[in-house]
């Protein structure tokens, strides 16, 4: 029993959605490469790896059972807060029939062929794909191991395998009263044939899956023992502090290092194409010395680049540029009342709490890397290229990630660290200052979207047109994802497929590139985060223009679509939609189906007479199909909403003269505990198909908030972040 994997050569967007995909990246990455995915059964290279790890019984690349000690589970994906180590361990342990108290987890080595995620065809954690892609494979992997342990026992005892049962890591035969632990059976199990077919548990018998199991990583993360990339310490290591040209694409012209060299502890001053690094035994010494460098920059070609100019250019391009069509169908020539709007989305930094870092040791014969990466194999490829070493001489140890959000889908920081480490004989731990992390992000880019609708007599849309304008991430990151004409499906994800019943649809994209020296990246929620803000804001505008209640308006358009409808209804019921609210208090609803899940969020806000937005309450309903761990689902929605609200309230990266203006949390703000409202999450149970979770909350957050602000003030804000200056109550004086 495996997930249906559609034909890679002929990816179909519709097919993707029907199988519960929804992430435009899916299926495209692996084109041209081997079918790189995890498997329940042995793959080429498995045995060798298991032998290196000293495993007695390794039925596949995911499970190791030794003569003694806990069962070792290898995590094909990385843990960056989404709880995936626990979920993947639960799925493996469930079918293997061991308790979570009998396992330990280990970070997978970088091997696409053994640890690739099927939906991404590479060892990549992103796009809310992990559980969607892996859950059946992981269950099967557990079941395969269990079957082999049983057959080993049956063979030893001379009894039929069918009479053996398992429980908590022990195989038992009731009739003979015999039993053996998995440890005891490991050696014999390793000699068993891998079964072609295995039975899986009936979900009603699940002991772990579906239950709020405590996370495997939490205890070490509350007592300080968990090791993140930044915590790695290896013998003889020096810490590197980096300064690169503040102007994007600028290069190092000259550097005077006399003063820096005088600083205590300084080891080396290392020149890089775009900057300088200083190494010292600790971060502080390296930083102090680096700050004493006298650096001259060649600011390069982007000194005139500004955010203001970018938005002007986007506006111009979206009016006159050539569009690539995502979809165009239905009677588009219907005449009637037309409503139009322009939505704008800022450049965004990821700002994970753990600033980017990497430990790298380049030796003549090998390169060793310790880093928390969403794309470990990509990092290996990058290091191989820079060092000239073959990929099998790049040894990468993946670590816990102190936040990813898409930032660690990039390997620029690893490349920088390799470029430093190449020049010195000792291992180097490069740590970015927060200022560097924000100023040299690979940011989410800006978009300008024109959306319009022709509405019928009752005000419901009969023609929907949407033209988004901005730059494409895959153009650089994975060009094979693009359609032949260059169309990037991520840019219209969640805008070209709506659950609403609208007869005519035209959605297109006008490409407008960023300067080459400002690469842009994936940011939590990817296409949906951008598109849902516009779609749900505009649906709200249509409801208002029609004089209808925004929930009622959406209900009517979801009549034929029961799964989304029940989610909308659940959220509306939970918050008590329709209640009378005090002046300048309002509720806003947003609904969408990102990443194969269905989600509805309702925010309740109060806007002060001077325009300050305070979120009073949040309610969300989520249908993600089968629930692995309800505790994680709630956490992802709560956290995702806060991530998205933070963006909507505060976040914008601005460029002036080619350089990022923001630098740290005092000017790139984060929502804080005292700004966080109570957030209720309601899980709407459904058999499936299964949906993603990691980005769903973020994608739905901003439109619910902006719609609530409209309800409270009557002011429709179509540009993020929401500008409080536009929300002052004209009737009120200073307050």
């Amino acid at each position, binding site marked *: 029993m495996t997930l249906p994997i559609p034909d890679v050569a002929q990816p179909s967007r519709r097919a993707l959605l029907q199988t519960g995909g929804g992430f435009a990246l899916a299926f495209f990455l692996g084109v041209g490469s081997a079918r790189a995915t995890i498997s329940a059964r042995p793959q080429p290279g498995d045995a060798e790896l298991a032998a290196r790890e000293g495993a007695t019984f390794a039925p596949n690349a995911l499970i190791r059972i030794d003569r003694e000690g806990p069962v070792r589970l290898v995590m094909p994906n990385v843990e960056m807060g989404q709880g995936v180590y626990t979920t993947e361990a639960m799925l493996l342990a469930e079918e293997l029939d061991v308790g979570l108290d009998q396992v*330990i987890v280990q970070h997978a080595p970088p091997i696409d062929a053994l640890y690739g995620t099927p939906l991404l065809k590479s060892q990549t954690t992103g796009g809310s794909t992990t559980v969607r892609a892996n859950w059946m494979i992981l269950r099967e992997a557990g079941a395969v191991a269990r079957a082999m342990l049983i057959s080993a026992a049956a063979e030893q005892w001379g009894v039929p395998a069918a009479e053996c049962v398992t429980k908590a890591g022990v195989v038992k035969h009731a009739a003979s009263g015999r039993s053996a632990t998995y440890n005891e059976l490991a050696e014999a199990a390793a000699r068993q044939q891998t079964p072609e077919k295995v039975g899986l548990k009936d979900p009603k018998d699940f002991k772990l899956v579906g239950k*709020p199991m405590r996370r*495997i990583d939490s205890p070490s*993360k509350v007592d*300080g023992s968990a090791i993140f990339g930044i915590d790695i*310490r290896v013998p003889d290591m020096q810490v590197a502090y980096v300064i690169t040209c503040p102007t994007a694409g600028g290069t190092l012209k000259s550097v005077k290092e006399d003063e820096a060299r005088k600083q*205590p502890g300084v080891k080396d001053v290392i020149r890089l194409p775009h900057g300088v690094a200083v190494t010292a035994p600790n971060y502080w010494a390296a930083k102090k010395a680096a700050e004493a460098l006298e650096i001259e920059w060649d600011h390069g070609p982007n000194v005139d680049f500004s955010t203001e100019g970018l938005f002007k250019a986007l506006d111009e391009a979206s009016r006159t540029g050539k569009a690539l069509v995502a979809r165009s169908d239905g009677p588009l020539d219907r005449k009637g009342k037309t409503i139009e709007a322009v939505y704008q989305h800022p450049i965004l930094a990821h700002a994970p709490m753990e600033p980017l870092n990497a430990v790298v040791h380049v030796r003549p014969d090998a390169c060793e890397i310790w880093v928390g990466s969403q794309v470990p194999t990509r990092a290996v490829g990058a290091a191989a290229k820079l060092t000239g070493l073959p990929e099998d001489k790049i040894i990468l140890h993946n670590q816990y990630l102190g936040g990813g959000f898409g930032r660690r889908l990039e390997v620029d920081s690893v490349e920088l660290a390799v470029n430093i480490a190449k020049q010195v004989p000792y291992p180097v731990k490069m740590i970015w200052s927060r200022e560097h992390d924000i100023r040299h992000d690979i940011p989410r880019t800006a978009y300008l979207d024109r959306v319009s609708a022709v509405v019928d007599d009752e005000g419901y849309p009969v023609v929907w047109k949407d033209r988004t304008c901005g730059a494409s991430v895959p153009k650089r990151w994975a060009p094979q994802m693009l359609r032949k004409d260059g169309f990037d499906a991520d840019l219209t994800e969640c805008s070209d497929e709506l659950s609403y019943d609208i007869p005519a649809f035209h959605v297109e994209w006008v490409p407008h590139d960023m300067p080459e020296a400002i690469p842009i990246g994936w940011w939590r929620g990817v296409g949906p985060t951008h598109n849902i803000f516009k779609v749900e804001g505009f649906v709200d505008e249509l409801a208002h223009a029609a004089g209808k209640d925004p929930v009622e308006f959406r209900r009517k358009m979801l009549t034929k679509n029961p799964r989304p409808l029940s989610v909308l209804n659940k959220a509306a019921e939970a918050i008590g939609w329709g209640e009378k609210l005090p002046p300048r208090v309002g509720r806003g609803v947003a609904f969408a189906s990102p990443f194969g899940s269905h989600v509805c969020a309702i925010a309740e806000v109060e806007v002060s007479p001077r325009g300050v937005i305070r979120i009073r309450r949040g309610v969300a309903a989520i249908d993600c199909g089968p629930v692995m761990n309800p505790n994680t689902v709630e956490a992802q929605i709560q*956290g995702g909403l806060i991530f998205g609200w933070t963006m909507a309230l505060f976040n914008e990266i601005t460029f002036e003269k080619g350089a990022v203006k923001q630098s740290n949390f005092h000017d790139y703000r984060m929502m804080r505990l005292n700004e966080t409202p109570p957030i209720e999450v309601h899980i709407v149970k459904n058999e499936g198909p299964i949906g993603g979770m990691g980005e769903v909350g973020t994608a739905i957050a901003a439109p619910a908030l902006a719609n609530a602000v409209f309800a409270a003030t009557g002011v429709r804000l179509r540009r993020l972040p929401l500008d409080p200056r536009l929300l002052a109550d004209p009737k009120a004086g200073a307050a």
Partner: protein
Amino acid sequence: MLTLNVNGEDRSVEVPEDMPLLWVLRDVIGLTGTKFGCGIAQCGACTVHVDGQAVRSCVLPVGELGDAKITTVEAIGATPEGKKIQDAWLAVEVVQCGYCQTGQVMSAAALLRHNPQPTDEDIDAAMSGNICRCGTYVRIRQAIHQAATGKPVAEQTIAYNLQKGPAQ
């Protein structure tokens, strides 16, 4: 040569007096549970206790410490408040990526020591200096209430004895 009292032990370190405690802990002594997040006292990831008070170690020059007693997250579980906080953190499953959580635990433990029954306002006053990018704030509040009252305030995780093993 400075002598610091860290987690009840005197540690002699050869560092300049203006070096922030954070880097002495992480890079010199090797206690990496205390995290670097911003370097400007805006995020709280580096929170430790100095004489029982929660402080931001990223802006605290070691030269100012004298013979003050420093407690880091590695030892906070040995205090009654620290233990209560850590237990509650696990029971309501606060942690996501976990990077900020050691700082959160330290701020919360200090709060509980000073104020065994904090109100929501007390929690706001003591905890808003700690940023969590994953947005675990709702559960942080719940966990502090639970640690203070001993009564479950949200769905509890199913606990089990975790195996200690190699991280990789």
